[in-house]
């Protein structure tokens, strides 16, 4: 591995403890803000009384819903609930105090009277005709705008032409992001009266929007400065907006800086979760395995309020049939409200759940047809020139089969599969091997404009500042962007400082989601580099008395290609350019081409490019205890051209671990709607001791739409893992149709 493969812009600061996270900030005069939560599943607020709490020494301010300038974020989620609470995390009061102790003492003295209302405790209950109505505007409990259909061909004829029809139901659970850093913000006012928010935010511009909504401030008077973010995975979006909105209101009401940090319990109770799904699939195939028809109903649990289901379910409908050619399709995706914590974005944005269901289905179909899992897939894989279920013709290289064959080869799949089939089924420890193949639409696609911006400035001493509108939350985006600049300008990374997002300094460039940080976020960077490069070469050409076309940039120098001894240092050129009045600070914007989408039929160009992945899993099950262990994972990803091998491989290993957690361990526990697993003693995530042997390979490919040929990767790394583990468990004799595959589920299951 070369130096360029592992360097990282912030590694030194992070190994020395110098990196500053939001909770590490301390502003002189700051107050500590706290949220008082309902703790109710569904209830009417009869009365709230803060009289005793206000008497606690050190308590500066207590705010109830009536004291708030505004009540909800852009969606339906309230900063403070009014009249009714819809889940335990609903905030009903805010406290600002001189110390953590005083703030907590005040919370203990708050008094509330609630009248319990009938709750909706599962997505099945939400769909019952007699279900309580949670939002009057949506009497069927369906989340607004969350229905995304796909209609292709003729589903009735498709099933008529099928020799075999298989129906299956699969389910997944609430999964917690479990970033190790709980949410935190510090809010203060600037001398011009505007607000400054330092926060652990994945999407500073969304945080800014939430603060503007909570305070009534215009966007230009709200400045959000991102701190080092201790993991996010889709989680530090809405919850941080709510947190920042509440802290800002307290800051303005008290005239003092306010710091708010969530405890782990609060983080688990209020932050969004991976949407649990119920999948009902019906698939029809010819005797030889050709897929003829797929009908599917995908219902996800949106929870108490309306957050991201309306966006996420679009991605879900596009990917619902997997990476296969199916002529007749009828798919409906929609979300429902319950009195549980809300569903939101989490790494994969519905794909890990869907791939689990749909790739389990493929294995079950293969078994029913008497085919090998690979044979069924090879017969049906999408290929270049094929039409997807949304009617999109795939013009770029389609590498579903390639990544699969390579992964199976790396995993020694055929030999191991046979060996497992010959194992003695009566031994205590049994094993199995299985795989899953998938694709992932790169970036936002037709969901939203994939536009974003960046600023590149070369200083007169030859040092460089890169600012992107997109954020680094641990994945290494600042490093990847710096790498692109270093490579294009032929300079050492040490010359480059890559800054976190400050909303007052960079153009609003949308959210850092959909694995678009490099894929799309790299584009304005490359555009800016190209402009700067042109200026520098022009200046250097004048000094070296040649034409710009004769020059090259490498090793921190500009030199003549024909005679490298005729050269100038990068710093000399930068200085000369600056002192001759050239602009060395460039703002660039990437605007993607439009994509066509027809909502009623789900037909159109969903994404410009797709990442292809295959994961092979090997498992071992203790038949006595039901404990399953993933012993090995192999993955192969066609992510185009990888920009930074170190950061990319970090994504792969991290995604594998997260996938193992989702497959075997992770699911929030509730008791009458209240979360009982609010910390890491009861919500278990993989430790170093749970990690399997991990092998991966990138399959390089060209001809895609990404920056420097890079396709989306971060989310793709986790997506097929739960499905592969489920198929491996099935090969070991345990076909589970609900995740996580806990020991008790395995024990209950008759080995088939």
């Amino acid at each position, binding site marked *: 591995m070369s130096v360029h*493969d*592992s360097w*990282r812009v*912030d*590694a*030194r*600061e*992070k*190994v*020395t*403890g*110098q*990196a*500053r*996270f939001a*909770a*590490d900030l*301390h502003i002189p005069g700051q107050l500590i803000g706290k949220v008082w939560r309902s703790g109710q599943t569904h209830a009417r607020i009869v009365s709230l009384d803060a009289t005793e709490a206000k008497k606690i020494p050190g308590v500066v301010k207590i705010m109830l819903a009536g004291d708030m300038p505004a009540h909800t974020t852009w969606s339906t989620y309230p900063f403070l609930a009014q009249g009714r609470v819809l889940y335990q995390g609903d905030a009903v009061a805010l406290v600002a105090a001189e110390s953590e102790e005083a703030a907590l003492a005040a919370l203990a003295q708050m008094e509330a009277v609630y009248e319990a209302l009938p709750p909706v405790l599962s997505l099945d209950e939400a769909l019952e005709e007699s279900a309580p109505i949670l939002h009057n505007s949506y009497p069927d409990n369906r989340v607004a705008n969350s229905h995304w259909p796909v209609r292709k061909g003729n589903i009735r004829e498709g099933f008529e032409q099928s020799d075999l029809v298989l129906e299956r139901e699969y389910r997944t659970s609430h999964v917690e*992001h*479990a*970033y*190790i*850093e*709980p949410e935190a913000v510090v809010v203060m006012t600037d001398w011009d009266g505007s607000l400054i928010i330092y926060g652990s935010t994945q999407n500073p511009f969304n945080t800014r929007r939430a603060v503007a909504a909570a305070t009534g401030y215009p966007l230009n008077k709200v400045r959000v400065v991102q701190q*080092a*973010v*201790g*993991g996010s*995975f889709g989680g530090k979006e809405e919850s941080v907006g709510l947190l920042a909105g509440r802290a800002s209101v307290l800051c303005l009401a008290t005239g003092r800086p306010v710091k708010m940090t969530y*405890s*782990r319990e609060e983080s688990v109770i209020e932050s969004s979760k991976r949407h649990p799904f119920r999948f009902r699939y019906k698939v029809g195939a010819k005797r030889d395995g050709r897929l003829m028809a797929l009908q599917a109903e995908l219902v996800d649990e949106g929870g108490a309020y309306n957050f991201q289901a309306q966006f996420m379910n679009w991605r879900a409908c596009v990917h619902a049939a997997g990476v296969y050619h199916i002529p007749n399709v009828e798919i409906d995706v929609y979300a429902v409200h319950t009195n549980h914590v809300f569903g939101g974005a989490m790494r994969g944005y519905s794909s890990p759940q869907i791939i689990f269901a749909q790739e389990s289905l493929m294995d079950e179909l293969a078994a029913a047809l008497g085919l090998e899992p690979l044979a069924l897939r090879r017969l049906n894989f999408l290929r270049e020139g094929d039409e997807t279920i949304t009617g999109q013709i795939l013009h770029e290289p389609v590498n579903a089969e390639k990544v699969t064959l390579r992964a199976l080869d790396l995993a020694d799949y055929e030999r191991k599969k046979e060996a497992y089939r010959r194992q003695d089924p009566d031994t205590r420890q049994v094993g199995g091997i299985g795989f899953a193949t998938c694709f992932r639409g790169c970036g936002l696609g037709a969901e939203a404009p994939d536009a974003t911006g960046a600023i590149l400035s070369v200083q007169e001493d030859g040092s460089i500042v890169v600012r992107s509108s997109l954020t680094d*939350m*641990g*994945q*290494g985006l600042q490093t990847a962007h710096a790498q692109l600049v270093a490579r294009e300008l032929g300079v050492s990374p040490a010359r480059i400082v890559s800054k976190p997002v400050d909303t007052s300094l960079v153009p609003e460039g949308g959210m850092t989601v959909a694995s678009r940080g490099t894929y799309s976020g790299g584009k304005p960077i490359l555009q800016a580099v190209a402009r700067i490069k042109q200026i520098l070469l022009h200046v250097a050409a004048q000094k070296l008395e040649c034409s710009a076309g004769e020059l090259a940039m490498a090793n921190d120098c500009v030199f003549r290609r024909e005679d490298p001894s005729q050269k100038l240092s990068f710093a000399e050129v930068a200085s000369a350019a600056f002192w001759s009045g050239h602009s060395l600070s460039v703002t660039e914007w990437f605007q993607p081409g439009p994509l066509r989408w027809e909502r009623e039929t789900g037909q159109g160009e969903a994404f410009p490019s797709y990442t292809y992945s295959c994961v092979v899993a090997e498992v071992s099950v203790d038949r006595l205890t039901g404990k399953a262990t993933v012993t090995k994972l192999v993955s192969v990803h066609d992510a185009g051209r990888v920009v930074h091998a*170190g*950061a990319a*491989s*970090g994504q*792969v*290993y*991290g*995604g*594998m*671990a*997260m996938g193992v957690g989702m497959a075997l361990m992770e699911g929030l526990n509730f008791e009458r709607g209240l979360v009982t697993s609010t*910390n*890491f*003693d009861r919500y278990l*995530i*993989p*430790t*170093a*001791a749970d*990690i399997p042997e*991990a092998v991966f390979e990138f399959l390089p490919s060209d001809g895609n739409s990404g920056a420097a040929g890079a396709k989306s990767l971060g989310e793709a790394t986790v997506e097929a893992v739960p499905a592969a583990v489920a198929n491996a468990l099935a090969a070991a004799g345990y076909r589970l149709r609900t995740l996580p595959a806990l020991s008790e589920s395995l024990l209950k299951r008759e080995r088939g």
Partner: protein
Amino acid sequence: MKKLITLNINGQEFDLAVSPRDLLVDVIRRKVGLTGTKKGCGQGDCGACTVLMDGRPILSCLTLAVACQGRRIQTIEGLSEGDKLHPIQESFVEHGAVQCGFCTPGMILSAKALLDRNPHPSEEEIKLGIAGNLCRCTGYKKIVESIAGAAEKMAEGEG
């Protein structure tokens, strides 16, 4: 009632007025101002608050500050010497074992405690040595490789 105590942190003595219930992590972060020690769960499950006390790893979110009088406490800030990183820190940087960095200080201190008592650990021993430190980003692989790499570096250093 506040109590006056003296804490020896990274070789430096701090005179502090603390409440008997104050946790070491809060005193280190808020009163001493060393924020490299992190608080991730508040109940000893995640390991982000790990510091070394007389060379052994402890969870500072479960430790009362008053109980640390007269002990030698080492935090992540006390590991490097000026600009010179400790071999474990160096190895984390070289192996790309850092992503979000929030678990990193605790992870490195657990690794140091491990290597101090077992300079040549097997892969299994490394995994067990950091099993109390949760990381959600890296999948642990490069962390384990870093610690193995640091063990080699430190052995060479001795030789």
